[in-house]
């Protein structure tokens, strides 16, 4: 067992009656990594997360934390994990302070530790001012922050965040991403699920794409982009009112050029194209035609395109 591996799913399957929610998934998350776990709704993200945090105990396969099987080490791993659930609510008669006290004691913290951690966390998530406010009076964003706050109470080594950004306004999303990045830098291993790619794009060290209970691919954002071939596309942006659009037909005579989308100034090259040769020829022709070229770029697939291709969606 590699000591650097923090979380490991090994051949994990889970069914709900006739529905196969997880189909023999296996993956590893090294210590200190932020792992973006993405997939459409119903892909199996929450099921695998609930297995990891111990809410689902009947499944096939094995899940390891620091090399220990979680079914055999139940008591010990509770303290290692902080969990931000997708939907969980709080008893509304509680104040934030009361909530932290209860969860802190249940997690085995002393009163002194709870006080210290409560202040520290409320400062981090900007909820200090409403510490003694009843939960029923909190806004949606504050409620979401409270979910994150309780997950941090026991100073977890592993943070499991199930759709932490869903339902947040842009400003709150920005704040949340900032907090998650900060936590990631502190060395916590973070498993972060979302069905929106933008949520994980700038945060995750690695991304795992899940669909219909199967892990389709895992890699760093760059690896995913590089591994996914969508053809050679050149993007040319020219100054306004240049004759590029009028003389596009001439470009089709250049070797390897397959077709040209005039609206976006995208030039699709044949898959076997010699990129260097083609670019030089295209450049020469455009210069002859006195085009004022602003930028000239070999387009890579965006992560969104990669994601949509994997989960069966359609790109433009």
């Amino acid at each position, binding site marked *: 067992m590699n000591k650097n591996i923090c979380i490991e799913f090994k051949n994990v399957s889970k069914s709900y009656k006739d529905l196969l929610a997880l189909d023999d998934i296996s993956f590893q998350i090294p210590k200190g990594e932020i792992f973006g776990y993405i997939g459409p709704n119903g892909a199996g993200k929450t099921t695998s997360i609930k297995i990891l945090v111990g809410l689902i105990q009947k499944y096939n396969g094995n899940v390891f934390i620091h090399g220990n099987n979680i079914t055999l080490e139940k008591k010990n791993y509770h303290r290692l994990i902080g969990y931000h659930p997708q939907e969980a609510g709080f008893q509304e*008669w509680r104040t934030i302070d009361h909530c932290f006290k*209860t969860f802190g004691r249940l997690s085995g913290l002393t009163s002194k530790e709870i006080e210290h951690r409560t202040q520290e966390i409320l400062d981090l998530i900007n909820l200090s001012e409403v510490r003694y406010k009843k939960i029923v009076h909190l806004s949606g964003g504050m409620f979401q922050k409270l979910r994150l706050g309780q997950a941090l109470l026991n100073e977890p080594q592993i943070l499991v965040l199930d759709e932490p950004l869903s339902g947040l306004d842009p400003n709150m999303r920005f704040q949340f991403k900032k907090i998650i990045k900060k936590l990631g830098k502190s060395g916590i291993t973070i498993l972060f699920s979302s069905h929106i790619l933008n949520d994980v794009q700038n945060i995750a060290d690695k991304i795992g794409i899940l669909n219909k209970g199967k892990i389709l691919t895992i890699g760093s954002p760059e690896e995913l982009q590089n591994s996914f071939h969508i053809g050679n596309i050149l993007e040319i942006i020219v100054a306004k009112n240049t004759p590029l659009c009028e003389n596009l037909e001439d470009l089709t005579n250049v070797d390897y050029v397959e077709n040209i989308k005039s609206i976006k100034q995208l030039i699709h090259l044949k898959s076997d194209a010699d990129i260097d040769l083609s670019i030089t020829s295209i450049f020469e022709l455009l210069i002859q035609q006195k085009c004022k070229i602003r930028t000239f770029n070999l387009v890579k697939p965006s992560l969104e395109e990669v994601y949509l291709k994997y989960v069966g969606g359609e790109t433009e």
Partner: protein
Amino acid sequence: MSLLLLFFDELKGYAKSKVMIVLWFGLPLLSFLVQFISPQTLEGMPISSLVALIVSSIGGTLSAIMLSTSIVSEKNRHVYELFLIRPVRRSSLILAKYLAVYLCLVIAVSISLTVGLVIDAITGDLIENYLEITFESLIIGLSSMSITCSIGIFFGVLVSSVPLAAILSVYLGSQLSSIIILPTFFIEILNPGILALSLGVVITIVIMSINVIVFSKKQF
């Protein structure tokens, strides 16, 4: 450890709820008002007995509704997930709720009975063996409330609709809790107090065991 912590936690929550204010102050007040506004309708009945009767019947039903609806609502809002990811037994969550509400009921009955007995003593309505009668009513009332509360939890754990849980708790809870005094109608030699206590304890333990098993199998 977690049971004790959750018990005091739940107690704090229920003690602040409006239902408990009704139980602790509203019902005794209602009983006294009935006695003072229309004393002839309750001729011969000490106010302490009337209060015990009202608190145990209405109080038990109210508590069952409160328990069932709060459990359904908390289940639907996934409140228990945040407890269960910590080292907390599922049985502790259910038992803490039951014990907290039951203790609130005992407090309500105690307040009502004490005030009732004081008023009876002042107004001179104390009948010859009032202590024995009052004690017997108290035992029957507490046993009945215990069953009603456990049935409230049963429907809370079992169903997913708040209105359905409330309706089932009202009708079946109060009906089933009367089981404890039924045998005395057919077998006269049975002491109603002892019988109610024995049946109350046994039935409560059985229902609560079922509740714990069903709750443990729930997927959160």
